[in-house]
């Protein structure tokens, strides 16, 4: 597979008479199919197509390529299973809420698998597929949604930040982390095991936050090795993308002085190829890139949301035809690259994963109310220690051992 650098959009030409007063003439109405700039390598029907700038698998043998695509299929299928299972757990009252990724599997697996071990990813609250790629036990994702913790993996070990709920905040953290990589000399050395990049995930809605735009500015200013990976799933809760931007989001990068590219976020091959090129660009010291993964939130915003209030079911039907998993399955089976046994094995794995989640969720350790006091500071303060002691005494006064929780 070629490591071709990302195309840089040309500067807008000011000459000539082609300028009109109506911006839509230029940027066009927001194309429902992603627009002519969409990078796609696998059609919804499961056909491989070429793109002038990006390709998948050209650096792999046919076998390796097929194995990789089967891997994507497995990743996506298992990720979807995590999602379905967690949604069910929420319905059964085991989780307080769940943010579904349904429909965004390709965007997440494609980009997640393009990461090297030493790269670092900063997620929002919906990157269950990326977490999977980072080797995080999906059970660890449940704690936050069950309310037993605010996140339960070690970011430094997993090279995966904690879920961040304040929209856009993590894009600045990613940029700062990337600035740290620069200072550590881990960019542009040419050593593939050393050079590292950071990826910041965010949504279409998040693109409106000041923080995200400041992250663009800092990244451009310092040429930081960060990929801004926006999953444009068309909705920010009830608000359609048009409320945030009337032109394709990837254009945003242009105005900040770095490249932007729109990829079919339901096409795992294209997402992988584009993310890989953007990450390599970052690792090589060529600075930030904005990748807009054009996709669709097929589920509700979260399990507490009711999308029937604000969007038409036809829209969902159209997007179902572009399902990211179906197209890979079609490609693999139609071309004899995966047999029934393989598909069956993945299904069994999914079953096991589901069981793991169901059983594990119940068993997730309940938090202790006293732990809360110990985690505020690295160096505990006397006044908080005193508050803890006072609360422990109070709990004791109810004749219930403090460590086991509520007196009531």
């Amino acid at each position, binding site marked *: 597979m070629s490591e071709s650098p990302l195309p840089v959009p040309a500067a807008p030409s000011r000459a000539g008479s082609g300028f009109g007063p109506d911006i839509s003439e230029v940027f066009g109405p927001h194309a429902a199919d992603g627009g002519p700039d969409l990078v796609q390598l696998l059609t919804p029907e499961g056909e491989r197509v070429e793109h002038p700038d990006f390709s998948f698998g050209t650096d792999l043998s046919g076998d390796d390529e097929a194995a990789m695509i089967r891997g994507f299929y497995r990743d996506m299928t298992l990720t979807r299973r995590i999602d379905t299972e967690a949604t069910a757990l929420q319905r059964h009252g085991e989780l*307080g809420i769940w943010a579904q990724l349904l429909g965004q599997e390709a965007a997440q697996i494609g980009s997640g698998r393009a990461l090297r071990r030493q790269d670092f990813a900063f997620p929002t609250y919906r990157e269950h597929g990326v977490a999977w790629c980072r080797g995080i036990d999906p059970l660890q994702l449940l704690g936050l949604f069950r309310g037993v913790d*605010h996140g339960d993996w070690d970011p430094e070990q997993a090279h995966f930040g904690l879920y961040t709920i304040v929209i856009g905040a993590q894009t600045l953290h990613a940029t700062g982390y990337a600035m740290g990589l620069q200072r550590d000399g881990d960019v542009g050395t040419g050593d593939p095991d050393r050079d590292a990049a950071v990826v910041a995930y965010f949504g279409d809605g998040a693109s409106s936050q000041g923080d995200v735009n400041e992250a663009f500015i800092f990244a451009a200013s310092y040429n930081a090795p960060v990929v801004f990976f926006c999953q444009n799933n068309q909705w920010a809760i009830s608000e359609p993308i048009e409320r*945030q931007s009337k032109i394709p989001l990837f254009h945003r990068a242009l105005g900040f002085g770095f490249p932007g590219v729109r990829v079919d976020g339901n096409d795992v091959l294209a997402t992988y190829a584009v993310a890989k090129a953007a990450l390599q660009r970052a690792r090589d010291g060529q600075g930030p890139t904005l990748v807009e993964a054009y996709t669709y939130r097929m589920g509700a915003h979260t399990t507490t949301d009711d999308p029937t209030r604000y969007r038409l079911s036809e829209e969902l039907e159209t997007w179902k035809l572009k399902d990211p998993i179906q197209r890979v399955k079609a490609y693999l089976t139609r071309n004899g690259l995966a047999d029934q046994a393989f598909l069956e094995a993945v299904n069994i794995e999914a079953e096991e994963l589901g069981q793991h989640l169901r059983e594990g969720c119940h068993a997730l350790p309940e938090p202790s109310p006293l732990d809360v006091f110990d985690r505020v500071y690295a160096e505990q303060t006397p006044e908080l220690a005193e508050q803890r002691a006072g*609360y422990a005494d109070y709990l004791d006064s109810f004749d219930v051992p403090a460590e086991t929780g509520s007196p009531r």
Partner: protein
Amino acid sequence: MTKVTLAKGLNAGLRKAMEDDPKVLVMGEDVGKLGGVFRITDGLQKDFGEDRVIDSPLAESGIIGTAVGMAMRGYRPVCEIQFDGFVYPAYDQIVSQVAKIHFRSKGRVKMPVVIRIPFGGGIGAVEHHSESPEAQFAHTPGLKVVACSNPVDGYWMIQQAIACDDPVIFLEPKRQYHADKADLDTSAEPQPLFTSRVVRAGSDLTLLAYGPMVKTCLASAEAAAGEGKSIEVVDLRTLSPLDLGPVYASVRKTGRAVVAHEAHVNLGMGAEVAARITEQCFYSLESPVLRVGGFDTPYPPSRIEEQWLPDLDRVLDAVDRSLAY
């Protein structure tokens, strides 16, 4: 007379304000078709149009900053912040602009902006969805800060806040939104906005609360009554300005006071209320004003929020400690 929840009371109040004054606008994230994540603005866009009920881009500073401009143009924007923890991106616009423009302009420019914030915990939510940021706003001169605690107050207070020519931070106890119903008589005469209210008479101790803790404190008082203790409960309602006249009167009678809120105790509203009561009622106090509130930690994971939040027992514990002096 209809029975309404707090959510419905607020919704009806907003609707009334919009009917009464065409300059009233509602804006925020998802306030339009969705009617807000809590449905407080339900149906308003349908009836008043997209120009008056404005779904905004996902940017809180933008919401408040543009509201400032609309207020300068003569509008009365009512901004919804989706959850307490998301007000901070707008903090600069609130404390440096909304709060200061009247002062900066020597009173020439009015800032009739209402910032509605669903606040407090107890709904089993994830991080940033259960905060109590009121003290930070009450500490900021130029803002007025109120908290409603029940459906009837919700109906009236939101209208009064909108009618006020000063910016009002309007706190709504989110866990009460769809809880208890109350009789709403829209023809009644409402109590003035910036006043507190004695909601239960008593003689042994004065218990102060606002927002979600009013219900808890009333329950505590009830429980204490069972043990023969007579607790007076005051719903502060307004946090800035504070209306402590009735509180001083009560404390001079009872000699003891406890302040309760969900916010962190350290530098919470309780600190100010305690300091003022002590200044004003020094010789009447038989025990120090005690405070009960959230611990000085970030809001915990929701499975233990009920322990973290002050509840009936924690309030009674403080009451007992006060009475033991």
